[in-house]
Structure formats: structure tokens, C-alpha cells
């Protein structure tokens, strides 16, 4: 694949990205992973998917020290492990050099298609800016149909969810969309879900549907969209092994750069 080829519209946000090139760096990351030995999705044990985070709009959002060579503003690591009782334990590490925030999320889900949130979850944010905010620690849980968050001993009401609608964290969508992909494609229907964005903001009305299939280099990718109230559309591109290869929301594009299997 030539770097000069146009990317798909759902992750081609080239505005103001002349140097360094958004398309070039996205493709380089993609080919570095997909040009090497194929890494199958691993269903058990601890697996880490590591993503490069590219800013969709370069102008004004650069990390100053990267101005000349590196568009990436950080990394997202999705680590999950299945416990003996079948439950999935997730740890998300998200670093964003533009906001200065490093986010660590820990949560548990049921072993179902929707990776429904279970038990308590934990949010830890650290910020290395020169201002007074440096750490944020929260613990959340669902009590009946209510979502609550506790911060510095203060209880914060997050919102109410409807029991009939599947409910998970946006970061679990990296597993949910692959799990639902066959059903969505074959039925032509959308799947409705409630999402707890970054474990703290409730997005109660969302739908996931099939977009189209494309080829990128020698890799076939199946695209899915996520539309919802309070969300800008995001687009999710799956390889044939069920890995989310590219996930683009309005402001950032995550490109898979590494899958790590860690023995259980």
C-alpha cells in the first residue's frame, strides 16, 4: 500500500497534518503490525492490545517536542484476563501527551457477548501538568439501576440505566464488537447498548451497526460504526482474526501496533 493512497473516509482526518503526515504514520504503524507474522486473537489468558494514538487534527494539538517527527500523542493498552469463575478482568492504560493525563481503568465484566459490567470499577487519573490537579481516584459501582461513583469519600450520582439494555464500558467494545460482528453482519440489524464512557459518563442510548468491508494493503478489514446520544460517531475496523485494527472517533485514531500474550 502506497502512503499516498487515500485512506478510508472514516479514519482519514488529514487536515493540517502535512508534516509529519497522518496517513504515512497511520499506514506505517498498520503495516508494521500486519506486514509481519500474523498474530491471532487469543481467547484465554491475559492479552494486551497496544494501540498508537494519532490525533485526527494536528494543528494546535501537537506535543511540542514531537513537532518534527512523531504524530503519536500516546498509547492505549487494553489488557484483559479471564478469571477462574469466567469473569473478565480489564485494565486499561491510556496516556495522552496533549491533555497530559494518564488514565488507568480497572473493571470486571461478565463472560457474555456484551461484556456486561460487574462489581466495582476503579478510575485512576494522573496528570503531570504544572497545575494543581495531579491525581484523581474514583470507585464506581452499579446499585440496582443506579450508577454511582465515589471520589474522596464523596458519593457522586452518575445516572440510571435501563435493565433491558446491555451495558458496558467503551473500552470493552474492543471485545464486544468482534463478538457481535457475525450477528450484526448476518442480520443486518443494529445492536443497542448503554455505555459508561471511561467508567464515569453514562451514554444510555447507542447503536452498533455494520459499515462496509475494505482492503488495506493485503489485509481485509470489516468496518462497524457506533452512533449514540452524546457521542460523535466512531468507526471500528476489524481484521479477520477479530482484532480491532483501527478505531477512529472524532478526534483520535487508534491503530493496533502490538498484541501481547501473557501466560495465564
Amino acid at each position: 500500500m502506497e502512503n499516498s493512497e487515500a485512506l478510508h473516509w472514516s479514519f482519514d482526518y488529514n487536515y493540517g497534518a502535512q508534516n509529519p503526515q497522518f496517513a504515512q504514520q497511520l499506514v506505517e504503524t498498520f503495516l508494521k503490525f500486519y506486514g509481519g507474522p500474523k498474530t491471532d486473537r487469543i481467547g484465554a489468558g491475559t492479552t494486551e492490545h497496544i494501540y498508537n494514538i494519532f490525533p485526527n487534527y494536528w494543528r494546535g494539538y501537537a506535543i511540542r517536542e514531537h513537532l518534527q517527527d512523531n504524530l503519536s500523542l500516546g498509547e492505549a493498552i487494553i489488557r484483559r484476563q479471564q478469571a477462574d469463575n469466567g469473569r473478565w478482568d480489564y485494565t486499561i492504560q491510556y496516556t495522552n501527551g496533549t491533555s497530559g493525563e494518564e488514565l488507568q481503568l480497572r473493571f470486571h465484566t461478565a463472560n457474555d457477548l456484551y461484556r456486561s459490567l460487574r462489581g466495582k470499577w476503579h478510575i485512576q487519573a494522573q496528570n503531570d501538568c504544572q497545575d494543581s490537579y495531579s491525581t484523581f481516584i474514583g470507585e464506581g459501582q452499579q446499585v440496582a439501576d443506579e450508577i454511582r461513583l465515589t471520589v474522596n469519600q464523596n458519593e457522586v450520582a452518575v445516572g440510571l440505566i435501563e435493565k433491558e439494555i446491555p451495558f458496558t464500558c467503551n473500552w470493552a467494545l474492543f471485545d464486544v464488537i468482534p463478538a457481535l460482528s457475525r450477528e450484526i453482519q448476518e442480520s443486518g440489524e443494529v445492536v443497542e447498548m448503554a455505555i459508561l464512557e471511561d467508567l464515569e459518563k453514562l451514554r444510555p442510548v447507542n447503536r452498533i451497526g455494520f459499515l462496509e468491508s475494505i482492503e488495506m494493503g493485503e489485509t481485509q478489514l470489516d468496518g462497524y460504526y457506533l452512533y449514540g446520544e452524546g457521542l460523535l460517531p466512531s468507526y471500528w475496523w476489524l481484521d479477520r482474526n477479530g482484532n480491532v485494527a483501527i478505531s477512529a472517533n472524532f478526534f483520535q485514531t487508534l491503530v493496533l501496533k502490538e498484541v501481547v500474550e501473557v501466560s495465564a
Partner: protein
Amino acid sequence: MNDRPNILFINTDQQSWNAVSAYGNPYLHTPNIDRLHRNGTSFMRSYCSDPVCAATRSSWATGLYTSETGVPFNGGYMHEGIPDVGQVLNTNGYAAFHCGKWHVPGRNVRESFHTLYYGARDIGAGGGEYYDSASTHAVIDFLTAYDGDAPFYLQIGYLNPHDVCEYLHNHEEKRIPNPLQQGIITEDELPPLPENFHYDESETVLQQVCRRTDDALIHAPILNGIRDWDEFHWRYLIWNYYRFIEKVDAEIGVVLNTLEGTPFCEDTVIVFSADHGEACGSHQMFQKFTLYEESIRVPFIVACLGDGVPVQKNRFDRAHFISGVDVVPTVYDYAGIDPSQATQVNRSDGPSLGGMSVRPLAEGDRVPWREFAYVESNYWGRAVVADRYKYVTEYKPADPEDFRPPGPDASRLGRVQLFDLGEDPWETQNLASQPGYEDAIDSCRANLLAQEARLNRRRIEHPNPRQVISNWGDSLRVYWEGLSVS
């Protein structure tokens, strides 16, 4: 509890007055701004001082109009001598905090406020997707831990829905497929075209040169990139704009939820507003910079989630004209600070505040009030919005080396747009050249000139004012000369 309330000023960026579900807009859902309305008074005739970020924010910082602050356009620098709200509050018994967007060139926010969060790289014009969530974390951390003796003033500058600007930039170079045709979205989800999508083309020269011509001074690449937009593209722009507002509404919700769980809930007064609006297809226009209602009219709510601060709740005020310059006097009023004293901090030639405290109105008191809103735009643009008529005009550029914002000077006034907001609230018919409106125009012009006579207009502060103002002035001059030839 302190005898003076805590003050929370929550502001969004680029939110028009009507982009709130509590005000009857069915195409977006803003449960948290709605909650502010239920707990306070919504002022439905609220206008920014200048429909662009840095300019209007210089008014928020000082209580002055933008021709007075040195920032009558986005690149201006605020004058050193003018005290800002952070300095004044910090020297008058309050602890003043800032979080998020500031965007007042020439004034170091970290020197005026205690800053909770201002980004790894100082936050600029946009980037809500990067910064707003971190700002909320910083505010939660603050509200749940603050144990200072002084009452606090906290201003939270959210960036969204400003990210709609990036949505528009994205269309400079490419097209996205029609998600209607792809079955991703349905027809009934898309908001309709605005009532004033078709408009009266007899606009000011300033509007033509800045926003309409192929080589428009402001965002020509966007303008030319969207010239062939069809109805779907405009409606999808509005749809996306509303999602940005829902995003920031959720951030506000987390802040309100947190406040409710703290002892500060009872005695914290909340002021909510936006720096300017978004055209969003009205008059086939995008972004701000213009003097149409969508660009200059913004939400303005004074609320208290508890009962410790007297505020009339769940009430619409449609009678009073509110301005962006009113934020500072309102804050000073709640803080018990004499505005005339406050303006003397660090300066010797203090003008009086242009604004008025909204507090008595929020408490339901009858007080003498202004009869029109006055708005400046793009250095030369002016609007006067009165009870029935709205008057938009412009100053013609004069001496290229005069870097003092124009006015009051009737001889330099250019074209006029006059709208009867009673009959034509969407500003679709310019009445200025029609017979029978001479008195209305004369009255509006008199109000404009009287208002400007009260201003302490200041030379713009900029390293190279010629680069900005003179070049723009040259473009305007060429256009005017072309008109006189034709």
C-alpha cells in the same frame, strides 16, 4: 458556611442560546443544562460582547467591551493595566481558581488565578475531546477536597462544542459519504434546515469580505470546501453540532453531581453561559464571527442547586438584555466587591465596568436595566439589539495606522441591516432600504453612538497590528472602492 457564597462560572464554547433541550429544542438532549435551568433563571435575551473566543473572554475577564480590553479580534492582546476577575477576587477575600480554556492573549492565567488544570500544552482554541474530561477530573478533585477558609470562585472553561470547527475544517479537503444513504442514520434523526437557511443577501461589506467571498478573510478554505453542500450536509452538520453539545453537557453533569455530594451545594451560585454561538447553517453560514442571532446570542443561567443562595428557579426571563460584560459585575456583586474599587487594582486610569450585575434579576427584583444589547465584531462590526428592531452596521476602514477600534462616528458608518425581530425573528428580511423604517434606523444608530461614547476604546495590543488590522482594512477598502465604481 461563609457569609459570601462560593461562585462557579461554567462556560461552554460556541453554544447558541437555543441549543438547550429545556428551551424546546427536540434534536438534542441536555439534561444537565436543563437541570441548571430548573434550579435557576434562564435569561433568554443574552448576547456575547463579541462573537469570537478571545475577544469575548477578555470581557469575561474584565467586565469591559472588547474595544476597551485590547482584544477586539481573536489575535489581540489584553492591556496590561486592566485588572482581571482572578486578581480582583484573590485580593478581596476569595480564592479564585481557573480550570480549562482561558484564551485571553496577553494575560497569563497562572498569574491571575490558582489553576487547577490548563493542559500539558497550554490549552488553545479547541480540543474538547482532549481536555474537557481532564478538566472535569480536576474539578471533581477540587470540589471533593477543598478545605480553604476563603469562599472560592471557580471558572470552568469547557471547549466543546467548539470541536465543531474541526468538523468543518475536515470538509476543506474531502467529502464523507451520506450516512443516510448508507443506512447509518435515519431521516427523522436529522434536524431540519434552519428557518433562515435562505437569507437576505443585502449584508454588510464586512460580512461579505470576511465570510462570503471566495477569498474571504475568515476560513475561506472551509467556505470553498462546502460550497456544493446539499441539504443533507447542512443537516448533518447540525446533527454533529448537537452531539458536541451533548458531550459537554455530560461533563457539566459530572460537575453538578459532584457539587451535590459536597457541603458546597447549598451556598454555591452557578453562572452558566457560552462565549458565542454557532451559525450552524443559519443564513448558510458556519461558525461565529457574524452578528446574526445564532452567532451572538448565548445561554445565560444563574442557578443554585441548593437553597443557600436566593435565585428564582425554573424561570425564563425574556425581558432583560444581558451581555457578556455582565458576568464580572455579577460575580463581584455576589462576592460583595464594589466594582468601581475593583477596577482600580493595578491600574491608574480605570474605566467603569460596562456591565451590570444580573443578581437582582435572578432574585426577581425590579431594577433599572439597559434597553438594548450592544455587540462588537471583527473590529469594525457593530450590532444593537433592542426590543423590536435589530440594527447591524459596520465602520468603514479609515487611517491604516490608526489602531484604535472605531466609533462613535456616524460619518464612517457603512451598510445597515435592520431586522424586525418581532415579525422576523430569524432575520430573513433586511428592512434597511425599505421605506417606513427611517425612524427605527435613526433610533438604533443613536443608541449605538451613545453607547460608544461611553466606552474607553483602547488601541489594540498586538506585536504587529498592521499585519492584522491594516491588511483586513485594505481588503475592505478594495471592496468599497469596487462598489463605488460599479
